[in-house]
């Protein structure tokens, strides 16, 4: 199990080491693939942060769904709930959000954005409720069920934009644009950075406060650290904690879909998400499952994805390399965590060897 103790995971030091390892491995891989790693990294960083517009209109905009889904994963993983379904929950939220944006004529203009975002959060939670119930009622592990629900959500979204939600001319596989009143306002004039960014940052800080100062937040951490001990304490109901965190995680991921529709695309189409729900796992792990740090790691991955296009255009390196790099980040975090832990074990008076060495 990934221990969720922030001190030992060493939020900053460990993450920096993991990034260093990632950079070296990715550099070697790029070099082996016949590319110049330095050119690649420079094209990526310049493309993502080289201008005011690149930073605010591309990278930070890209970071919004990553922060929100990253929070969803961090919340679930903290409670020991393996929600790998943020991708599907995001799509469920996007479908519900766009539906409100299309059919919200009766809603007063000021209430349209809250209604859209609320619907997307509820839809994400509803989507998460299926694996939640299967886990709590039938004892079926959530890893497989959340993964399967992702594929269902993606296929149903495709059906919706080819069928009931297709734009009025029935030519393109996408919806009509949502009502202008449903658009999220721009928060940095002259860029595309929308209010979803501020919302994501506020939710991250709110989740941080939730873990730190509320009874339920404490219960979530306790259940994640050891469900047996939490149950034995007699003070908390592990099943209720799982229920609350699973649905909350789904709501955050669903909100990511609604925010993307209301802030960026203003319509729904197939392939809305290039796998944000999976990248979110890297975002959350690199942050040591700390909500505050998710803001930073979300922006980091936003820069990576934002720069991927420039890397492809200016250095001729396929942008799919960035998804390979995301996998390297997760593996590096795991490796650094394990190596630090074995060092800590030694320092605590072990015999100096890693205990596994007994096995051959």
């Amino acid at each position, binding site marked *: 199990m990934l221990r969720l103790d922030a001190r030992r995971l060493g939020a900053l030091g460990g993450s920096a080491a993991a990034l260093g390892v990632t950079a070296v491995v990715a550099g070697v891989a790029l070099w082996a693939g016949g590319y110049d790693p330095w050119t690649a990294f420079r094209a990526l960083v310049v493309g993502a942060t080289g201008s005011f517009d690149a930073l605010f209109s591309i990278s930070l905009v890209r970071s919004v769904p990553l922060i929100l889904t990253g929070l969803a994963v961090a919340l679930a993983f903290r409670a020991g709930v393996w929600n790998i379904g943020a991708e599907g929950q995001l799509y469920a939220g996007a479908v519900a959000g766009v539906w409100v944006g299309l059919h919200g004529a009766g809603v007063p203009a000021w209430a349209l954005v809250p209604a859209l975002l609320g619907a997307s959060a509820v839809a994400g939670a509803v989507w998460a409720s299926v694996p939640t119930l299967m886990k709590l009622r039938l004892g079926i592990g959530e890893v*497989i069920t959340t993964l*399967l629900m992702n*594929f269902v959500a993606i296929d*149903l979204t495709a059906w919706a934009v080819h069928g009931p939600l297709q734009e009025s001319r029935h030519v393109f596989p996408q919806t009509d644009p949502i009502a202008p009143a449903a658009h999220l306002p721009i928060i940095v004039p002259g860029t595309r950075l929308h209010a979803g960014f501020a919302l994501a940052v506020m939710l991250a800080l709110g989740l941080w406060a939730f873990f730190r100062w509320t009874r339920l937040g404490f219960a979530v951490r306790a259940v994640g650290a050891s469900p047996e001990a939490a149950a034995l304490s007699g003070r908390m109901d592990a099943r209720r904690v799982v229920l609350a965190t699973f649905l909350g995680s789904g709501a955050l991921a669903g909100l990511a879909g609604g925010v993307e529709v209301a802030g960026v695309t203003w319509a729904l189409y197939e392939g809305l998400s290039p796998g944000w729900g*999976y990248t979110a796992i890297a975002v959350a792990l690199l942050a040591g499952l700390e909500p505050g740090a998710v803001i930073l790691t979300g922006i980091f991955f936003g820069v990576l994805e934002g720069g991927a296009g420039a890397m492809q255009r200016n250095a001729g390196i396929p942008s799919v390399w960035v998804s390979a790099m995301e996998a390297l980040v997760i593996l590096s975090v795991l490796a650094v965590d394990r190596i630090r832990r074995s060092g800590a074990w030694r320092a605590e008076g072990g015999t100096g060897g890693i205990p*596994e060495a007994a*096995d*051959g």
Partner: protein
Amino acid sequence: MADVGALPSFLEASVRLGTPLALAALGETITERSGVINIGLEGSMIAGALGGALGALWLGSAGFGVLVGAGGGVLVAAVFALFSIGLGADQIITGTAVTLGGLGFTGAIYQARFGATGTALTLPTLPALPVPVLDRIPVVGGALFDQAPTVYLAYVLAPALWFFLFRTASGLELRAVGEEPSAARAAGVRVRRTRLWATLFGGALGGVAGAHLALAHAGTFAENMSAGRGFIAIAVVVLGRWDPVWVLLAALFFGAASALQFLLQTLGLSVPYQLFLAFPYLVTLAALAGWVGRSRAPAALGLPWPAE
């Protein structure tokens, strides 16, 4: 009547679509029996598909392609084993990372070789090899016994792996490692070595399953062509209750769920194509909900060893 004519082709499609699930799920059955859950199976499948495609292209034979595909699957499983068994990292997170890495790196390699535009790649395909006599059985003969050799591999492996698991000493050791690793260790079984071999075996079959996708189904490679089949295969293991024979039957059942669209199309029913794509996943979820209550996973599944 249309349904009489449609039935053999429906069965044929069920077997063809069920085979990659069966191969991957049979490998994962062995892996999970040793106490390791490898979500990276999807990564092994896509690596097997690319390996199969490149191998068939370079060596000019689909048969060699399958071997290269198995090698690709083993490579991905080795990365998973290094982290989850070697370092004792969490199996779910490692498996997710390995799947993402498999999809990313195969995409990168494919684009580097064949360009980002995705020029259609035409590969030598695995020919159907009819089994004498059996392929003459009315209705089902052609569907079951006039197929690619990888299909027969699944037929043979299911009883062979059942015999290995439940009738040999090594199989008993493997199951002991998955149920009570500490007791197995005390009895002299090398827990991590057993898990390593079980994981690499699962990766090899995942690779063969991917190669089957590229060489028996499509005759080409496409990015993401495994399309979540590795995850369905893991669900199939649960439905087959970690018993290879039942796992094969469960995989063929899901092949049938996927093939249903062809049957209904020939029957003239028009149901939107995207709903058919969702159907196998929904059936899997429903089957999990309906059946799983009566099965039990290996006791040490997903737990690192030695425990901390």
